């Protein structure tokens, strides 16, 4: 059976697993963004926390994904459901690039612009929303782009603990020693990663163009 025949026969399952994969990725990215951007901003205001937060984030990144799933398994509420566990682990991986780029992006804003903004009577909240975040957005999006690609890739491993996604095909294919099955998982995951990369890249350019 050729690869295309395999795809045609299993198209429904491929679509289902792709949606499952996407669901895991979207949830983890949403959590990573909701935590990572405020955390990155906090680091610019409280530089003393920087080493601690970025350091511990770095440590998380060095833990192999399969091991991280294993380590989170005994955690009471998290370990109870595979998808919960997977989303948490993926969010942890996505966190570092988002926190780091938010921190860098906000720190790189021209100090003169900030001083004048404050000197003219903008409140710290206004400075954040009107100056720091808009000017940091291209850099923050760069972090989101990296995080999205990492998450889509690592999410394939989640099948090992039974939370589904395209990794199902990959693990099944490995067990069956059948390349068609492996590719049926690997190719959609790769396409998803490329699309996410291109889409966020486009967004970055759109935001940057009129403003520079």
């Amino acid at each position: 059976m050729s690869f295309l025949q395999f795809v045609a026969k299993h198209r429904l399952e491929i679509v289902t697993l792709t949606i499952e994969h996407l669901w895991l990725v979207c949830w983890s990215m949403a959590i990573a963004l909701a935590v990572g951007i405020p955390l990155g901003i906090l680091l610019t205001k409280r530089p003393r926390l920087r080493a601690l937060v970025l350091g511990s984030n770095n440590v998380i990144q060095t833990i192999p994904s399969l091991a991280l799933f294993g380590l989170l398994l005994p955690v009471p509420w998290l370990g109870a459901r595979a998808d919960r566990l997977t989303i948490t682990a993926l969010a942890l991986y996505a966190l570092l690039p988002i926190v780091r780029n938010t921190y860098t992006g906000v720190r790189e804003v021209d100090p003169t612009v900030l001083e004048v903004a404050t000197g003219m009577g903008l409140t710290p909240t206004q400075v954040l929303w009107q100056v720091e975040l808009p000017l940091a957005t291209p850099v923050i999006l760069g972090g989101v782009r990296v995080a999205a690609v990492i998450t889509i890739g690592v999410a394939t491993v989640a099948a090992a603990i039974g939370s589904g996604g395209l990794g199902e095909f990959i693990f099944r294919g490995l067990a069956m020693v059948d390349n068609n099955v492996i590719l049926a998982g690997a190719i959609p995951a790769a396409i998803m990663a490329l699309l996410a990369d291109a889409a966020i890249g486009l967004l970055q350019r759109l935001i940057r163009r009129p403003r520079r």
Partner: protein
Amino acid sequence: MTLHSEFAIEFTHVDYAVSADHALLSDLNLSVRPHETLVLLGQSGSGKTTTLKLINLLLVPTSGEVRVEGRSTLEWNPIRLRRRIGYAVQEVGLFPHYTVEENVALVPKAEKWDKRRIRTRVEDTLALVGLQFPEFADRYPHELSGGQRQRVGLARALAANPPFLLMDEPFGALDPITRAQLQREFATLSKRLGTTVVFVTHDVAEALLLGDRIALIENGSAAGVYSRSEFLASSDETIRAYRETSRLSA
């Protein structure tokens, strides 16, 4: 405006130190009269910029008191105080992601003026600094020349019609011809508006052109305050040295 003293801005025994053994200002006494332009003239590192930043509360005095409209800066709500004080610096610091119109509208918008009033005010303020609204409103700062950028910076500082204006070598980075032009225009403009201006420079010619009075800042305190004619006539050694730099005589 309720004035509790005859001065618009007053420094009394102001010290400012970044650390225990590093003082930038020591025992600075200085007063600015309403509607005058006071120039702070001094060398790099003399404390001119620090003095300016104490007025709009970007810095807080280590000891002593800075009074604005008779009230200590520490008693002011910092946001309210700063919105009464226009601020223009050499690097301009326009928001690069805002158009000229949005940049100039900054303080009026923060003050929640209604849209029509903001629009009219932006047009008027741009006209004051010699820029035509239709031509410049939609441009971004990187599409402007250095001189135009500084004009927009000045318009932004003036937009909410503040009674005070702080200027930190605003024309310092411009080419000589543009600089001379802006200096002349500013001299007329500040008189017409009646704004109380504190202007920092190290350029004697600029000080003499713009200043009603000139305060000589040396080593973190005011070495003397002179009217234009006093400055030109003074036999003080530093002042003579300054006059030499631009070959000016009495």
